Each structure stands twice: as structure tokens, then as C-alpha cells.
């Protein structure tokens, strides 16, 4: 077989990679960074304890004044262990988190629209890292910090390491490590309303923290044991339950949760994400391309950052469903809307425009 033929065949090996898988990989990296930090702190603590024990022994046995000085000098190597492991690592703290990168900030600026996120940031004086939440702006000075909306008009900023400057209502507040401060947000970019009615008490809530910590298999088992009342009819809860189902290997069980978000919470900004995820589950895991195409169509009709991927996946789904007319029309639409789109090649292929 000619060599060029292999290369063109190789180009057809293309995984279904999109923003959802990107997000999961980012979460995994952030978790590993966190585990590494914990391990390093534990190691440092052991070293420090050993040094203190050795120093105490030296002090007791020699009874000299130099022993204390030895302890101090040997302890200093602990300091570099707190150095950041990456330039910027962002962890979404809840499924309702909506965090959008700011254009022209080179990955060092985000708008927090809802939920909360944790940031591990190394300081770069020339490219300050900023997070904007409504009319509050947080600027890092080399740190690890968390920004979270406890309610639509309040923002909690918690600093674990280093310090940040918060610009709010014309005043600058510097927050040091170990401090939590709350700020009023008078014009939140997007307020996610809390449910107006009191949530029904779930039979057991043990599945929720498991799912939030990425232990999806255990969360799925706990969810099964807890029964049908364990999931509240709220977008965040439904999305979390869907994640627990599909990421533990039960994609079919994720479908009703996602459909519920799409149908009953269509006004929620996360419903387009639910539609997109539903499309992926139906297309990639359940082999139901016709329904998947409709789900992707709903996701793109909401616009936003998912629209391009949703249209591309809709072309693919229509093609797989055998609806060549629809896939061709959609592929032309994609070419018109995104002439330099990231998925242009795949769209042309599925739309029969090659």
C-alpha cells in the first residue's frame, strides 16, 4: 500500500474530543496538583518533626546554646516546597460553576459567572492574573485562592497561600493567607437563583460529596441505594447525578437526568451544557444518533462557547443517522459560520463536502 495512503487513513483516526473531555482532564490535573501538594506538606512536616526531635536531643545531650541555631538552619529547606507547580491551575468547585476566560488575557483572566472556583497561580508582574465577579475584581500577587458565590449578591474570597488584592466599590483590599473575606456584588454577571422552595430532604445525601470529589462509581452505588428521592429537581443536582451515572459506566442512566434539565430547567444557562452532554452520551455511548442530533441542535441554539462544537457534532450525528441532506446543509452552515473552524475537516467529511 502506498505510504501516502497510510497517512490519509491515519488522518481519519480522530477521537471524539471536545470541551467536556477537556474539562475532565483539567479537573484531573488540578486534583493531582492538590494531592502532590498534600504529599509534599506531609513530607515536609515529617522532615521538620525529625529535625526538631534531633535538635531537642542535641539540646538535651550537649546542653549548649548552639543546638537551637542548628534547628533553625536545617529547617529552612522546607520553604521551597511551597513553590507553585504550574503557572495557572483552575478547579471548578461545583457543577454550577460557570467560568469564562477573558479574551486577550492569554489564559490569565477569567469571569466567574456562577458557582465557585479555586485558582493556583504563580505571580507574573507583567501579566497579572485577574478574576472578575460582577463588579468585584480579584488580582493575584502569587497565590492559591478560591472565589465563590454563596448567594447571588455576595462573593467569598478565601486565600490559602500568598495574597490577593480585591478591587470592590472603588476600594482596594489586600487579603493575606488564611483569611476569608466576603464582598457585596451589586451587579453580578449572572446570578444563579437558589430554588425558591425549600428543597425536599433527600433520603440520603452521601452520593453528593462522593460525586463532587470525582468518586463516581461509589457515588453511583450510593445514589442507587438512596432511591429515587435522592436527587433534587435542581439543575446542579441533576447534572451531578448525570455525571455520577455516565462517568461510572452507566450512560443510559444519565439520560433522564439530562433530559430533565433540558425540559424542566430550559431557562437555566446550564441547560445548553446539559443538551450538549446529552448529545454526546446518545451519540458516543448509546448509538442513538438521531436523538443526539436533536440534542446538539438544542445546545447550539443557545449560542455561547459550545455552539461551534455542538453544530459540528450535529453534522456528525445526522451523518451517522443516515440523514445525508441534513448533515450536508448543516456542514454548509458550519463552513459559513466558522470558515476557519477547529472542526472544519471533520465537518466536511461527515457532511459529504470533501
Amino acid at each position, binding site marked *: *500500500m502506498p*505510504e501516502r495512503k*497510510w*497517512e490519509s*487513513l*491515519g488522518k*481519519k*483516526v*480522530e*477521537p*471524539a*474530543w471536545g470541551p467536556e*473531555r*477537556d474539562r*475532565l*482532564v*483539567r479537573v*484531573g*490535573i488540578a486534583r*493531582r*496538583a492538590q494531592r502532590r501538594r498534600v504529599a509534599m506538606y506531609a513530607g515536609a512536616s515529617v522532615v521538620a518533626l525529625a529535625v526538631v526531635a534531633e535538635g531537642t536531643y542535641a539540646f538535651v545531650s550537649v546542653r549548649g546554646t548552639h543546638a537551637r541555631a542548628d534547628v533553625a538552619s536545617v529547617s529552612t529547606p522546607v520553604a521551597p516546597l511551597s513553590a507553585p*507547580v*504550574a*503557572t*495557572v*491551575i*483552575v478547579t471548578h468547585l461545583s457543577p454550577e460553576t460557570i467560568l469564562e*476566560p477573558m479574551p486577550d488575557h*492569554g*489564559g*490569565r483572566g477569567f469571569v466567574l459567572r456562577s458557582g465557585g472556583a479555586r485558582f493556583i497561580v504563580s505571580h*507574573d508582574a507583567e*501579566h497579572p492574573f485577574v478574576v472578575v465577579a460582577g463588579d468585584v475584581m480579584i488580582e493575584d500577587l502569587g497565590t492559591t485562592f478560591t472565589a465563590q458565590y454563596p448567594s447571588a449578591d455576595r462573593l467569598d474570597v478565601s486565600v490559602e497561600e500568598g495574597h490577593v488584592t480585591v478591587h470592590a466599590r472603588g476600594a482596594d483590599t489586600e487579603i493575606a493567607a488564611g483569611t476569608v473575606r466576603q464582598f457585596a456584588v451589586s451587579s453580578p454577571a449572572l446570578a444563579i437563583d437558589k430554588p425558591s422552595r425549600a428543597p425536599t430532604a433527600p433520603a440520603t445525601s452521601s452520593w453528593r460529596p462522593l460525586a463532587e470529589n470525582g468518586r463516581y462509581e461509589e457515588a453511583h452505588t450510593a445514589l442507587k441505594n438512596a432511591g429515587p428521592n435522592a436527587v433534587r429537581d435542581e439543575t446542579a443536582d441533576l447534572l451531578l447525578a448525570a455525571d455520577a451515572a455516565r462517568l461510572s459506566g452507566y450512560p443510559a442512566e444519565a439520560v433522564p437526568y439530562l433530559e430533565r434539565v433540558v425540559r424542566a430547567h430550559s431557562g437555566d444557562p446550564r441547560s445548553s451544557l446539559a443538551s450538549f452532554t446529552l448529545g454526546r452520551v446518545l451519540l458516543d455511548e448509546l448509538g442513538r444518533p438521531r436523538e443526539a442530533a436533536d440534542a446538539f441542535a438544542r445546545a447550539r441554539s443557545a449560542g455561547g462557547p459550545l455552539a461551534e462544537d455542538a453544530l459540528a457534532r450535529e453534522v*456528525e450525528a445526522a451523518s*451517522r443517522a443516515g440523514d445525508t441532506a441534513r448533515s450536508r446543509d448543516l456542514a454548509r452552515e458550519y463552513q459559513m459560520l466558522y470558515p476557519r473552524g*477547529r472542526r472544519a475537516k*471533520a465537518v466536511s*467529511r*461527515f457532511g459529504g463536502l470533501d
Partner: protein
Amino acid sequence: MSTQPYLRLVARASDVVSGGPVDFEVLFERYSGYVASLAARLLGSGDSDLDDVVQDVFWLAARRIGKIPDLIQARGWLATVTTRVVRRRLLRRRFRALFHAGPRPIDVPASGATAEEHAVLARLYQVLEELPTDIRLAWSLRYLEGESLEAVAAACGCSLSTAKRRIGAAKNEIDKVFRDA
């Protein structure tokens, strides 16, 4: 007179001039899809492994971001790291296969391929599964990914002559199967 347009592809000025430390978010945004595609071609099947490979590669990138001089050279650096991560995974997969009764099903992620192309790809990866891992990777980088010999040698961490020898060895085996294709 040449009919070629007097144009050549150059890197974006921002990429070349940046010179400073590479931003992890920019690196991830620009190359996560590339790493996933490269890993998919090298692995052949096992779509579920892809997320782990991409995570391993970018976890290393996050820790060694200071060693990546700029976004252009980042591509080669990521290709080398991806090849190493995939190599480990293929070796592990081969070891696990010793304890399985039958061969693993070949499920190549090529949704845009025709049925005939699917069959050729499945047969190809069957042949590749039987080759030594280093030989398989060198051939895949050269012919499926379309990399230059120098890039294959760099990604595999071997000399140019070793890369050529590995590619040749794989080619002989593959040609035996696809002689009539």
C-alpha cells in the same frame, strides 16, 4: 516562471516573539486536541485511555512548563512526551494481554472512515499489536502521523539510523499483510 504564490507559512508573531514562559492555559487550549489525536493514532483502540494519556501529558507539562521555551517548540515537546506516555500504556496493555484468553477487540476511533477504511484500519492495528512497541511507535509516527524522520527519532528518543531501522522493520511486516492492497 514559477506559478507558486510568493507566500510561505510562518508562525504568528506573538508565538515567536513571546520567548518568555509558556502559559499553561494557553498551552492546554491550543494543544489538548493535538495530543488527543496523536495518542489516538498511536494507541489505535481504547478511547477510554485517551483521557488518562492527555492528563498524564499535561500533568508533566504543568510541572515542567519552565523547560518549554515557546509555543512552537511546545508541539515537539508534547509529541515526545505523548509518545513516551503511550509507550508505557502499550507495554502495560501487552503485559495484561498475557492474562487474557482472547485478543482484545480492535475499535479504532475513526467515525469519518468508510466501512472499507474501517476494515483496513482494524487489520492494520491488529498487525501493529503484534509488533514490538518501539517499532510500532516509530512506524505510526512516520506513516500515520506523517512526521519527518528527524521528528520520529526525537519523539522516540533514539538516533536517526535507529528510527529508520525500526520503521523499515515495521514496514516489512505490514507490507507482507497488505501486499495486495
